[in-house]
């Protein structure tokens, strides 16, 4: 397997009046071709920042300070705007979080397809455009006749989300990045979108990266999971391993907080404490104020992401490179 995207040391901040929000701090990970990677974290943990920095679509106050994003060996971040514009959507498509406001309210759906095609100088005539757009809309189980000539306000939230996915598939990109594809939707529509993404993954040769705060969604869809806490990547592992054997205390807490995993409701445990402020993040490991295993070193020095075994990566002083640091971590897993 080949990494199609390789993120190295990515650091991005937001400039606000009070200072800088360190939303993505030295993030490194690899995405294999045709795999599904979930980026999981709480709200405001910096997960969207990572994918927006990767595609250079940060809001105006966002800045990328350092790092590389290699797409097939080419650094996306050093491309000129025009080169980047050509790659966007044709090779890497990003479906943003706010699906409800992402369509131009005064344009019909068909015109969104048309603009996208024209932007990339694809020579389709009108009939071909309709054919391709209908094909993609059918793929996301929408009725093309009903949707193509509708205005965004005539569509429901779930339909809009699916239109965005259909738009993203239009030019058959190699990488599809979805920001919170299921949040802001009701449970049934969520299940529908998840089912749909599963089917797409089987049907198409496509690499999926998606961001979610819902670890259950990640469990359903992803091959690999990256856990983000306070702007740091704290654990990266295969989905199977992450659920079977979570390494980082935060991941552990995250999994314990979902009900489906715990048949016994009394075992559902929230993580104590509040998410860290990214304006003034805690020193050392950003999780230490909430961590039961916090040691002296956790308060002083930030743990680096290290590889433990079988590709499992974690940033925690409970572990050392190539294996476990001390046995207490195993004992503690009994809670």
């Amino acid at each position, binding site marked *: 397997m080949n990494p199609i995207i390789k993120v190295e040391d990515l650091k991005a901040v937001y400039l606000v009046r009070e200072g800088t929000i360190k939303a993505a701090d030295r993030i490194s990970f690899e995405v294999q071709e045709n795999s599904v990677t979930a980026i999981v974290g709480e709200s405001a943990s910096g997960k969207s920042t990572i994918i927006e920095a990767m*595609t250079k*679509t940060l*809001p105006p106050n966002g800045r990328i300070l350092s790092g590389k994003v290699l797409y097939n060996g080419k650094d996306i971040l050093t491309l000129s705007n025009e080169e980047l*514009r*050509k*790659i*966007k*959507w*044709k090779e890497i*498509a*990003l479906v*943003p979080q*706010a699906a409800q*406001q*992402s*369509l*131009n*309210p*005064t*344009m019909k759906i068909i015109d969104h397809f048309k*603009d*996208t095609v*024209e*932007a*990339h100088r694809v020579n389709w005539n009108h009939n071909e455009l309709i054919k391709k757009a209908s094909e993609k809309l059918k793929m996301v189980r929408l009725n093309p006749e009903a949707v193509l000539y509708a*205005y965004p*306000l*005539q569509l429901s939230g779930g339909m809009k989300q699916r239109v*965005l996915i259909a*738009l993203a598939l239009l030019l058959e990109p190699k990488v599809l990045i979805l920001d919170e594809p299921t949040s802001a939707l009701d449970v049934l529509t969520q299940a529908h979108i998840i089912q749909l993404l599963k089917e797409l993954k089987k049907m198409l040769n496509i690499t999926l990266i998606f961001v979610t705060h819902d670890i259950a969604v990640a469990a359903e869809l992803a091959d690999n999971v990256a856990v983000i806490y306070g702007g740091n990547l704290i654990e990266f592992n295969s989905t199977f391993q992450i659920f079977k054997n979570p390494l980082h205390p935060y991941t552990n807490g995250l999994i314990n907080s979902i009900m489906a995993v715990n048949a016994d409701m009394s075992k559902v445990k929230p993580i104590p404490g509040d998410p860290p402020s990214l304006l003034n993040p805690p020193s050392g490991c950003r999780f230490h104020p909430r961590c039961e295993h916090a040691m002296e070193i956790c308060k002083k020095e930030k743990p680096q992401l290290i590889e433990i075994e079988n590709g499992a990566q974690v940033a925690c002083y409970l572990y050392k490179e190539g294996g476990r640091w001390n046995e207490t971590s195993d004992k503690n897993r009994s809670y």
Partner: protein
Amino acid sequence: MNYFINKTLYLLIVFAIAISGVFVLVNNMPGDPAYGLAVSIAQQRNMQIEQALEIAHKMMGIDPHESIFIRYGKFVSNLLKGNFGYSAFYNTSVNEIIAKSLPWSLFVISLATFLSFTIGIFLGAFAAQKRDTIIEGIISTVSSIIQAIPPFILAVLILFVFSVRLKVLPLGGAYPVDIEPSFSLEFISKIFLHALGPMLAIAIPQMASWTLSMRGNTSQIMEEDFIRFAEARGLRDSVIAAKYVRNNAMLPLVASLAISVGYMLGGQTLVESIFNYPGIGFYFGKAIAVRDFGLLTGLFTLIVIGVILATFIADFVYALIDPRVKLK
């Protein structure tokens, strides 16, 4: 279709209320509407003012002992017949005055609106695109200052600088008195030259206010998610600027455009008086000055109709261009 039926009904109701308002207002003004005419009759024919008043009343078709309801009924029935009343000062029907002054007003207003709107939209969008630069600062500051200048002060300034000092613009009127009206190129160019002064006095503050609204709307639209999504799809900046930003930012302005035309109809009294430009505003000012109540009522009614119609047109236009209005 329901939308248009609703709007039409609404229009008729507003119209009835407004017309009644005009009637009550003018009827409760102090003084006899026929007094002005009576004075001139008394002077001409050298008779007592009481007798002159009686004649004047007869000439204007007013019976002072008539109840207000009967007068209201006459006023409404006249209006429905398209009769706007009688001007005592000009000794002619108000319809005739409207017929000769409305075209001039519409000419100047449409010129001013077209110019100020196109330039304002362009400048506003341009300023918003250049956010946080010197260019934006200059456009916004200058616009705020110009917007605050009342058109009549600007009118005096233009008259003084261009007509009195530089002598490049005429002093007043709609066209030179020594030329016979015709469709010759010379006459048409003179018409434009004469309209230029009042047009600029109206257009310049208007332009500044369009610029400011457009800048505000544009920067608001530029924050919208659909703009970022358009960028994410790799659309060209020029396409985004036109189809996604400008079209959406302009929507509310197109509606206010129609309304502003309606208001300008009656709002240019001072400018038209300063330039001696024979539009509706000029006669309106004259009617107030000489207490010509008939003319006042007629023109007032016309202006009210203009404003209501403009609002109505704005609603229609809005429904045509914004899918969100029609469908809801």
